[in-house]
């Protein structure tokens, strides 16, 4: 099976009925995408499939053939992307297990809405459970990243 992940085409030996999450974490070695519940509730395994956020635990590998997949490993190009840097600086990550999925959900939001307000941010990450932060600092980090992406002060 062929999967395009983070801009690179991979040839991978896997059953098309395997969960995309297991193929990413296993044969492709991309363990940045996490499993928190295995039933699409926690959002820790959020990836972008052709630009849309999905739970990789609910997608079959075969469904992702021909699609463009983005995981947390694909966010940084050399240095941290503004979104990642803002999560580090503003306290958006604590234990870090929800962070990859949270970043991907935020990336999806900022691609379609360059200047989201608090309510739009909260709605966009409502499928990603964080048990550590209380969310305020995640919301602040995403808002901050939107400003940086728009060329504003960091």
């Amino acid at each position, binding site marked *: 099976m062929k999967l395009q992940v983070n801009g690179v085409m991979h040839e991978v030996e896997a059953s098309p009925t395997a969960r995309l999450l297991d193929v990413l974490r296993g044969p492709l070695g991309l363990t*940045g995408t996490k499993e928190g519940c295995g039933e699409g509730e*926690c959002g820790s395994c959020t990836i972008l499939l052709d630009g849309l956020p999905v739970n990789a635990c609910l997608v079959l590998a075969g469904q992702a053939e021909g699609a463009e997949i983005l995981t947390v490993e694909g966010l940084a190009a050399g240095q941290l992307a503004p979104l990642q840097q803002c999560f*580090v600086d503003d*306290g958006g*990550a604590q234990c*870090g297990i929800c962070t990859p999925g949270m970043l991907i959900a935020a990336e999806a939001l900022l691609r379609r809405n360059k200047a989201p307000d608090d309510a739009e941010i909260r709605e966009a990450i409502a499928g*990603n459970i964080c048990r*550590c932060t209380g969310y305020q600092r995640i919301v602040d980090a995403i808002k901050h990243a939107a400003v940086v992406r728009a060329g504003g002060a960091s």
Partner: protein
Amino acid sequence: MIIGRSVPRIDGHAKVTGKAVYVDDLPPRPGELWGVTVRSPVAHGTLRGIELDPAFDWSDVTVVTAEDLVAMGVENLVALIEEDQPILATGVVRHVYEPVALVACADRDKAERARAAVKLLIDPLPAVLSLDEGTVVQKKYRIDRADVDAALAASEVVIEGTYRVHHQEQLYIEPQGVVASWHEGETPVVHVAGSLQCPYYVHKALKKAFHLVDDAAARVEQTVTGGGFGGKEEYPSMIGLHAALLARKSGRPVRLIYGRKEDIEATTKRHPAVCKVTLGCKRDGTFEAIKVDVVMDGGAYVTLTPVVLSRGTLHACGAYRFAHHRVESRAVATNTPPNGAFRGFGAPQTIWAVERHVDAVARALGRSPIDLRRQNLLQKGDLTSTGQVLDVSVGGQECLDAATKAADFDRRARDLEAWNAAEAAAGRRKRRGLGISTFMHGAGFTGSGEHRLKGKVQVDLERGGRLRVRSASTDIGQGTETIFQQIAAEAADLAFEDVSFENPDTSKVPDSGPTVASRTVMVVGSIVQKAAAAVASHVRAKAAPGESFATAGDRLLAAGDAETKCLVQYVPPQSRAFDDATYQGDAYPCYSWACDVAEVEVDLDTFETRVLRLFTAHDVGKAINPVLCAGQVEGGTLQAIGWAIHEAIVWRKDGSIANARMTNYIVPTSVDAPEFHTTLVEVPYPNGPGGAKGVGELPMDGGAPAVANAIEHALSADLRWGAGVLLPDLPLLPENVFERARRAEVVS
């Protein structure tokens, strides 16, 4: 100053790039097996036998039962406080989900099928499923100061109330798990790596069960841990023992990682409790005497219950001044999974009761909840229920002032009442309200705990003038790595970048005591400070004139100078001894203080509550890293809000859990969470690094009562209820609030 600066967390880069290695991210080891646990489906029963389905192919499956432990000479015991909990049940099962057998196979799917092919023969016995039915007392305490009976008899006003709280699941997003291997005849014999808070707890449990004498025979290392909140304090000992047993019998490495359902079902939860409070005061509101009767549900085994009950007992009189105290507490056994450590550790349960009761007293006296609290809050020089004189770092009043000022409390309350009146006039069904709680939390281990623990850290000089902090204190998200580096850099007068943090691994770090009890920064941080200062001042003392720190350090290292390493053991500050028999004396080195103000919106049709805004002020002594510190405050407060209005374990009549999934065990999402307005108050504690004291657990204590108080305010123009509070019990799920509202009189 590096202390007090919000240095970006040191593990942040790895966490935002996906490079941080959690237990399930460890690459598979050659020959590795997947381990699973076979559990009792019965709450209480006689275990007659275990049958392996003869139709199943067991040729490549390893099975371990209690009989194997006998054959291997393993002591069937999870070492903790009491020696009552077996690694695998034998003879009798005492709760649903109790581990009875272990299975491992290289093929994960086959391991799961093998689990189903193990048949447990159990004859059911009568089961005790709630604390109301519990008769077996696991532990009890009594505090009795001055003359409560006489004082209550003489009080102008005496108010009684009974308050209940429920289980809560920690729901860290990374489920529990370990990878274990066994190396017969080598050192270490047993190696466990996993998601855990307290490497030396697992180490102790392995040594005890496997009769290992040499400390080096067992090695336990922490992998990056995706949240704990107390849930990974004691339970990883059980999982570590299970994986080690499978590894020993099979001769292969074993990965044992729980799925979400199994994690919710089998691991520990917050203790349910019921508290009866009697408070005597003057008509002017001056508190005089308090009597609290506490019962907690310990579950089927003792585990950490005595310590949880102790903390609950010591916090049962709240943050208020009384001349007479009596607290009688007991924990009873039930046939439910053992309850254990969860952020707050018994205090949120009793603080819920006393805070609700203060609201009941305010109502009876016609006083505002703020004024009554302000009048009675403990201040410097006052005595606690244990007769401890609060002589240092007492910031309760400052927190009350800061939080009510940030909320602009009186004006906001009036505005909300006007808003409610307008809604009502327009026939709309939303109501808003404002509520408050004030609370304190003892920092560090209770009483003589730190004397017994003898926590240690080591700081080593490394090449290039760098320092390495070796400590068993784990970073489970709260930022320990970063904060210890800040403390060490400040103490050594070095740059933040010149300090590093050794991964907690029992082969590399001394036993600093467990990562619990809001003790990491205040207690362990204080010895990190001492050790780093000692090494740095030694290097500077030995440096030749004009020689740089790095050059002098390298020279000393090359010469094998022994003082380039410094091991420091914690010595508790001189204080009045705590008497474990009378529960009198200095219970904690100091207390952290806080005040929460919650603004809620309640729907009069559905009785759903939303917390719109949360103003909180926390006196933490000194925020070493304000961003990380505020993150603790907000995250802990949201867990308290979740406990109050979203979260509930649903127990079936057979003692099993009906909602062991994230689909139906509901924790707050980003849209449920309030907007936080956090103020960090700093009333320094002289023995903490930079003045810092504990913060980890405090935020869990006050969220629930502030929300309850706010809901009652929101409903107060529409409903009239009798004496006491409308909402004495958690959880405040819509159906429960509806039920209480239904019994109240509707104001037309």
